[in-house]
């Protein structure tokens, strides 16, 4: 069994119009830039995939990565906790023009809903957002004298993640705080593809230090010197 894919293009080739797409990363850390750009290339060449729902903590920065997807007009909806950031013009413009939908979710609830999807837990209770407008319409319940909101799992059709080392059967490790949402999203999508900075044979990752076991990963592509979103944004790169 070898899950290696030929290229970032091959990794995103079968994502259809309207797909629900989880993209790992938090701010610029852990964002799979090469996979995202391959998807933009495909859209520019073929007009597909469009009308995507993108699930990420943020809504893109600068003019690369998710921001470039939004600018290109591929994204119908963002699901995130913090779309507002210093370089989020791409999202802001489309949102204020009513051209993109937003589902706003508290960050911990977003993480837990994704984890629940991966773990086969269709719903759970959290204290987060109780009594706020983000809980409107959601069932509430009291446990041990405290009020909680019921939240549903959040699944996706595809997840694009960025990892540091991967072996060819899909075991992954991450670099520093670039871990963030990546291991959760890998669990929660029907099909997960990872870009890894270093692809090694099975046995090349110590079984005790694997963060994402290979069962959660469907395909991997090596991008040996990956671009870093924050570095690109600071350099003013436009994709």
């Amino acid at each position, binding site marked *: 069994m070898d899950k290696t894919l030929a290229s970032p293009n091959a990794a995103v080739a079968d994502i259809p119009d309207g797909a629900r797409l989880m993209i790992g990363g938090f701010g610029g850390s852990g964002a799979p830039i090469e996979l995202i750009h391959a998807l933009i290339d495909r859209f520019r060449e073929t007009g597909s995939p469009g009308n995507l729902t993108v699930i990420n903590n943020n809504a893109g920065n600068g003019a690369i990565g998710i921001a470039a997807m939004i600018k290109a007009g591929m994204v119908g909806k963002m699901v995130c906790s913090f779309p507002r950031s210093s370089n989020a013009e791409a999202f802001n413009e489309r949102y204020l023009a009513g051209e993109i939908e937003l589902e706003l979710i508290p960050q911990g609830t977003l993480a837990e809903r994704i984890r629940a999807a*991966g773990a*086969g837990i269709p719903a759970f209770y959290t204290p987060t957002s109780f009594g706020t407008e983000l809980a409107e319409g959601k069932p509430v319940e009291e446990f041990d004298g405290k009020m909680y909101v019921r939240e549903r799992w959040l699944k996706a059709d595809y997840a694009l993640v960025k990892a540091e080392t991967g072996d060819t059967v899909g075991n992954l490790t991450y670099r520093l705080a670039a871990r963030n949402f990546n291991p959760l999203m890998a*669990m929660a999508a029907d099909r997960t593809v990872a870009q890894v900075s270093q692809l090694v044979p*099975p046995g090349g990752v110590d*079984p*005790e230090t694997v963060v994402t076991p290979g*069962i959660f990963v469907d395909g991997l592509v090596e991008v040996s010197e990956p671009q870093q979103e924050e570095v690109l944004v600071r350099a003013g790169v436009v994709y």
Partner: protein
Amino acid sequence: MAYSKLTNAQIAWRAAQDLEDGAYVNLGIGFPEMIAKFQPEGRDVIYHTENGVLGFGKAPKEGEEDWDLINAGKKAITLNPGASFFHHADSFSMVRGGHLDLAVLGAYQVSRNGDLANWRVGTKGVPAVGGAMDLVHGAKRVAVVTDHVTKDGKPKLVETCSFPLTGVGCVTRVYTSLAVVDIVDGHFVLREKLAGLTLEELQGVTGAPLHLEGDPADLTVPDLD
């Protein structure tokens, strides 16, 4: 016609023929574990065990056990390249979350709608459930290996389970000592039976109607001594 029912090894062999290349599989402790021995050549199967190991291999030689490296049946195992460790919650995320391709379990009874009873036969003694109730949920395919009848000759494939349930409507294929039976839309559908066994004989030891979708194939298994 004459027939001799399959041994457990032969049932395991037959179940092993359905292991798919690249599949993630959990084999229940005891009899189902035997299936791994008959994994067909050229197919790569990754075994999961509830206590937090993916990609384990054969048992070590006696005397070479590391008792921190065991499977859910508390037997010593070894690791294949590409193995990983994780905690129990992550392990059962794999189970419940639909990430396993196949789980194979033993059974006291399977009902025609796929209910499984395999954890308790009565109210005496110490009850124990382990991971069985979790394994029947989430795996893309849940299969059972079992003798076709109990030791005293009663059907194990039944209309309704009389023993306490492990799960409701969860089993999709049963490999028995006489036949291979699928569960489709609340019915037993006979896929294979021993060549020497008539349909009537098989129905006679089965507790609910066996449906046919075309002729059943011969259930052919090598001698395994």
